[in-house]
């Protein structure tokens, strides 16, 4: 017998409708929740970017080597953790925001430029001696020169072969090279004098020598390897947030694998053929061998705060550096002149600064500021002479970001505005 049972069928249909309805409710709920989460994540990412812009654009908002929690728009819902600290000659900026367990963070290496005007090729202090050019010397761009000006000269059987001595505007220089940024010098001189940052994780290099490989994130505390004796980094691989400090010397060999690390020692020796990205600071001597490659952003600096003799930075023949090369000696007298030498076929893409003498035989695709030139030949020593040297800022990448080499007072006078920092590279 066929049963009608309409009540039973009605309940079954109702149940099916209920199931479909509850599925729709769940779908709508999760969809809405997902959308809200997406909006919040977007907001977190935007706030982190805003924080990074704040770090780049306003030094006073977050002073160097401090960390702050900032309410970006004073609404109570846009809290960002900001930190700015020095990293060699550059700075590292951290911007971080968290929302309901979701954390977004950006870490960047930041820098700025020697001259706001990227056309500046040369700043040679006025020591009452003209600049003499010989051979195939090329200076392209604005040049700040002594009042005595620039002239052709004939040495080592070579006279000036170009059509124009300076291919650019010539302006008058002051008696001394513009003051170096002492803030940057003090930060790095402290490491050379054995004064470490309290936050650094200090490790005796002798005890950690078995660990020949370390890649350290910039989100973690800095690992500082120190040694009273020499440090030999041959055959070792170190990347990231790592500092080496030696009271004697640091040796980089051609099989060292170094990226973004800092090196401090009275003496830094680099073997022929080395390749890597480092910021190395020497107190007395830095000797870079032949055909070495220092990738961007590298810095080689000589900081001599206790004036002494025999202080020299030497960049070997055929070596290349993309970044910054500088030599600074405190209260240098003519007797205690430090010597910065750029050998034949060496190439620097970026900034070069010396508070004393520069011997330039290679090429600079960027700018150079120095007190005087010195040229040694087998037969004689010439002052303010350049032979087969090139200084051409137009060959430097438009995206190049260097460091704040000059004092703020000089920059303010030169640029009439506050200099904006720029991102050198993203670290995380």
């Amino acid at each position, binding site marked *: 017998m066929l049963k009608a049972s309409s009540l039973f069928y009605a309940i079954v*249909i109702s149940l099916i409708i209920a199931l479909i309805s509850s599925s*729709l409710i769940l779908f709508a709920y999760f969809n809405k929740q997902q959308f809200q989460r997406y909006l919040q994540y977007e907001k977190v990412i*935007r706030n982190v970017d805003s924080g990074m812009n*704040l770090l780049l654009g306003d030094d006073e908002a977050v002073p160097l080597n401090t960390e702050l929690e900032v309410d970006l728009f004073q609404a109570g819902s846009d809290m960002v953790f900001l930190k700015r600290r020095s990293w060699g000659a550059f700075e590292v900026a951290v911007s971080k925001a968290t929302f309901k367990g979701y954390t977004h963070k950006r870490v960047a290496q930041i820098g700025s430029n020697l001259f706001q005007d990227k056309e500046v090729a040369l700043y040679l202090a006025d020591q009452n001696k003209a600049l003499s050019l010989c051979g195939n010397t090329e200076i392209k761009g604005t040049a700040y020169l002594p009042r005595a000006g620039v002239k052709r000269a004939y040495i080592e059987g070579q006279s000036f072969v170009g059509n124009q001595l300076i291919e650019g505007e010539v302006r008058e220089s002051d008696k001394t090279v513009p003051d170096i940024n002492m803030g940057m010098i003090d930060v790095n001189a402290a490491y050379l004098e054995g004064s470490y940052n309290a936050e650094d994780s200090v490790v005796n290099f002798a005890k950690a020598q078995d660990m020949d490989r370390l890649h350290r994130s910039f989100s973690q505390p800095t690992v500082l390897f120190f040694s009273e004796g020499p440090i030999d980094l041959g055959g070792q691989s170190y990347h990231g947030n790592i500092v080496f400090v030696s009271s004697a010397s640091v040796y980089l060999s051609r099989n060292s694998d170094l990226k973004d690390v800092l090196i401090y020692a009275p003496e830094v020796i680099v073997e022929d053929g080395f390749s890597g990205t480092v910021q190395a600071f020497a107190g007395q001597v830095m000797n870079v061998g032949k055909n070495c490659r220092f990738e961007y952003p590298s810095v080689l600096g000589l900081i001599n705060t206790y004036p002494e003799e025999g202080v020299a930075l030497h960049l070997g023949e055929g070596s290349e550096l993309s970044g910054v090369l500088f030599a600074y000696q405190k209260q240098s007298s003519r007797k205690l002149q430090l010597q910065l030498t750029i050998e034949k076929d060496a190439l620097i893409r970026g900034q070069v600064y010396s508070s004393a003498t520069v011997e330039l035989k290679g090429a600079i695709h960027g700018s150079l500021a120095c007190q005087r030139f010195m040229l040694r030949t087998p037969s004689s020593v010439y002052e303010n002479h350049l032979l087969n040297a090139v200084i051409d800022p137009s060959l430097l990448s438009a995206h190049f970001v260097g460091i704040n080499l000059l004092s703020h007072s000089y920059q303010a006078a030169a640029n009439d505005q506050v200099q904006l920092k720029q991102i050198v590279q993203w670290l995380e």
Partner: protein
Amino acid sequence: MAGMTLKEILNAKARAATLVESLVAMVIVLISFGIALMIYVNIADSSNSQLKLNAHLTLSEALTETIQDEAYIDEETKKGILTIVKTVQPYGRSGSLVAIHLEAKDGNGKVWGVLDKIASK
């Protein structure tokens, strides 16, 4: 009805439902459909989130354009049914930063999305 012939099936007596049973069944089905319809309408209403998403995407696009073109001026632009209101103010003391505030409003002035960002000039 297994084992029944077609003749037996056709001759069998079908038991009818009572009037009460039928009425109750109709009421249950009507209530079920009613609730389902309410849910459907609610979900259809929640397609407001579609408008919110549109507003958000339009605001993101406007923000990108503002920064790319460095158009750091207050302005109102019509994008579909939404009006994007942009307000730009100096941020901090450096003079090199601006706070960009963007709002997406409909014809009734209801705000469907807001974006804030600090940018460098």
